[in-house]
């Protein structure tokens, strides 16, 4: 009786204030996911401008200065605006549901860490309309491009990055505290679902390296405005130091953007293979190993700065070592599918594509890790192909798979399976058409971040641009599917996937506003 009355009493507030004032993990998760979808389209529009300019050789549409702003903003928005908030959104929705907690541990902080983001990105995007234009130094903002030669808007860029960093750090603190303190009674660490494990490790990476990013942008700010010389050789500093500090942040950042996707895939593959995950303990240890190694490989981004041979060798071998735990994960997913009773619904299709295409991106990563070969590949489209293969059919496919997988539980409605299959196949063709030819032009020496190219690269670039237009347009179909599901989808069952296990499926469909107000009983299998 009282439980029922309380549910009514504590239901969501009406109108817009529900979303502004909410401390509910499901509302905040939805806010994060919608925000990152909007950012995906803004960043995608910038990619559209880039690919339209590169459709043909020569300069047709935009000036090189604006092209540079587009590559910079595309990278910043996709990384900090689309991929990272999407994973925080998934964590908000799923971590409490998967560990049987009523909410995140620090709900008000949760509200704050989301609502910083719209302000941060409004500030970042406003630089496009400033005199001198938006940041144009690449998302890696190497000094002196971001100090001596920076446009005046660099100051806004620095503060926007500070705000994004604060948001990520607070989100990560919330996830860690929730996982450590709010698990259902009797749930041990080695009982945690792998999505939760991956996010726990990701959150530790976040609180370890986002402050380093904050430090490096602060140093840029001081070099620009306060006359310090952290990165200026004229004042006793060193521009190479910038790259060391930056990549000390940015290499773990790469794993921040992919470990939660590993977690998603580790949930989806067993469900649609109708088998428990192969090698749970190995998966957890492999994730920890990847996180640890990510701290000692950063200079493989800088093989060409003039490092001594010992340095090149150290970073080459440690980088190659990462292939071992990553290989463990890939083989465990394949072993999970082996002799499983597999079906191929949309989430499973995206998950399998993730495994295949992420592995391609991993292999080109191994090629780049070979220091002597890297001198040829450095700053070419081969690098662009590599990191887009791990980020788009990697992280982004992981997020899309997660949305299809959990949407029935979130919204209470089933998506249209036929449209989902169309979405998958068009995305799969689009993504490969976009990024695979980049390998070839990169190996042939086409440099990245340049708005023009030599004539021999014309055919492959046209293919890439066509693929990009296909992939980008296909995501409008994704939005249509989402809206249709939420508004008029067929009601989903309590357990929409017969092979699904885990606490999140034990709550009613759609998931009520408050869940697990009393801790669930765990029935160990």
């Amino acid at each position, binding site marked *: 009786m009282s439980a029922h009355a309380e549910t009514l009493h504590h239901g969501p507030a009406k109108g817009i204030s529900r979303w502004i004032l909410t401390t509910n993990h499901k509302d905040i998760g939805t806010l994060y996911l919608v925000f990152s979808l909007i950012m995906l389209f803004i960043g995608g529009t910038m990619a559209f401008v880039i690919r339209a300019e590169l459709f043909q050789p020569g300069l047709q549409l935009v000036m090189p200065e604006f092209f540079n702003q587009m590559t910079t903003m595309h990278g910043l928005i996709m990384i900090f605006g689309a991929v990272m908030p999407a994973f925080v959104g998934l964590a908000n929705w799923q971590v409490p549901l998967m560990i049987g907690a009523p909410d995140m541990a620090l709900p008000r902080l949760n509200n704050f860490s989301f609502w910083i983001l719209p302000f941060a990105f409004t500030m970042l995007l406003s630089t496009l309309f400033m005199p001198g234009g938006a940041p144009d130094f690449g998302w890696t903002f190497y000094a002196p491009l971001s100090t001596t030669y920076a446009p005046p808007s660099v100051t806004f860029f620095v503060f926007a990055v500070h705000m994004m960093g604060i948001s990520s750090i607070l989100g990560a603190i919330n996830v860690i505290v929730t996982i450590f303190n709010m698990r259902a009674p009797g749930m041990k660490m080695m009982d945690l679902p792998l999505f939760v494990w991956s996010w726990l490790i990701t959150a530790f990476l976040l*609180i370890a390296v986002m402050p*380093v990013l904050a430090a490096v942008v602060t140093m840029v700010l001081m070099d620009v405005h306060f006359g310090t010389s952290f990165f200026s050789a004229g004042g006793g500093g060193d521009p190479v*130091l910038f790259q060391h500090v930056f990549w000390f942040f940015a290499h773990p950042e790469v794993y921040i953007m992919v470990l939660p996707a590993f977690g998603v895939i580790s949930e989806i593959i067993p469900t649609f293979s109708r088998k428990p995950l192969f090698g749970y303990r190995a998966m957890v240890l492999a994730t920890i190993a990847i996180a640890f190694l990510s701290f000692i490989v950063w200079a493989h981004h800088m093989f060409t700065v003039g490092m001594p041979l010992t340095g090149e060798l150290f970073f080459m071998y440690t980088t190659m070592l990462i292939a071992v735990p990553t290989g463990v994960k890939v083989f465990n997913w394949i072993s999970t599918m082996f002799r499983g009773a597999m079906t191929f619904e949309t989430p499973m299709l995206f998950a399998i594509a993730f495994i295949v295409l992420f592995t391609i991106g991993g292999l080109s990563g191994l090629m780049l890790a070979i220091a002597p070969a890297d001198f040829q590949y450095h700053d070419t489209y081969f690098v662009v192909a590599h990191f887009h293969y791990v980020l788009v059919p990697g992280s982004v496919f992981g997020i899309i798979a997660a949305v299809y997988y959990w949407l029935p539980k979130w919204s209470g409605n089933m998506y249209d399976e036929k449209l989902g299959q169309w979405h998958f196949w068009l995305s799969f063709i689009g993504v490969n058409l976009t990024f695979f030819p980049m390998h070839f032009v990169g190996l042939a020496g086409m440099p990245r971040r340049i708005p023009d190219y030599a004539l021999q690269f014309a055919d492959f670039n046209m293919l890439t641009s066509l693929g990009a237009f296909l992939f980008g347009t296909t995501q409008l179909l994704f939005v249509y599917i989402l809206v249709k599901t939420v508004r008029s989808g067929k009601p989903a069952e309590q357990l929409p996937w017969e092979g699904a296990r885990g606490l999140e499926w034990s709550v009613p469909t759609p998931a009520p506003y408050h869940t697990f107000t009393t801790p669930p009983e765990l029935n160990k299998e």
Partner: protein
Amino acid sequence: MKSWLKPSSPGGLVLIVVLMFGFGFALVPLYDVFCEVTGLNGKTKGAYQGQINAQAAPSERTITVQFIANRNDNLSWDFVAEEEEIKLSVGERKQTHFSVNNTYDKAVVAQAIPSVSPPQAADYLNKIECFCFQRQPLEAGEAKQFPLVFFIDPALPEDISKLTLSYTLFDISDRNSNGED
């Protein structure tokens, strides 16, 4: 351990964040220390402080030292090395000059930044006097000879017979601090 300081509590996690922010800045001196200890990066030391033994017997071993004067966007003055390269025996003291001409129509304070290649040789190139030790103010149109007095430490590894000393000039007129330490 106090309960709020555990790495699973908000206080402990905030502490990690603060420490890592500090670590980001600590990388700056750590980088310098690392380069100094390993002799990487080709940075030369300050003025030679030891005893200079002028009576030492001239050594058979001769080293070629090449000089490079770099101009870049920071300061595009006329800046050339008087001698492109000199041969000297190890331990022998040599003097050379770089000539510079302020082609700007305003007074500028310049700072020269040295770099030695191969970097392992940087520790054995000892400068007794160098224009890079001070800031160099030049009036508009002023020309100057920059002196450099140096010798090569006989302990220079056997496999190095040639080294390059390059200088790049930077405009530091708007800086108050003395850059070279």
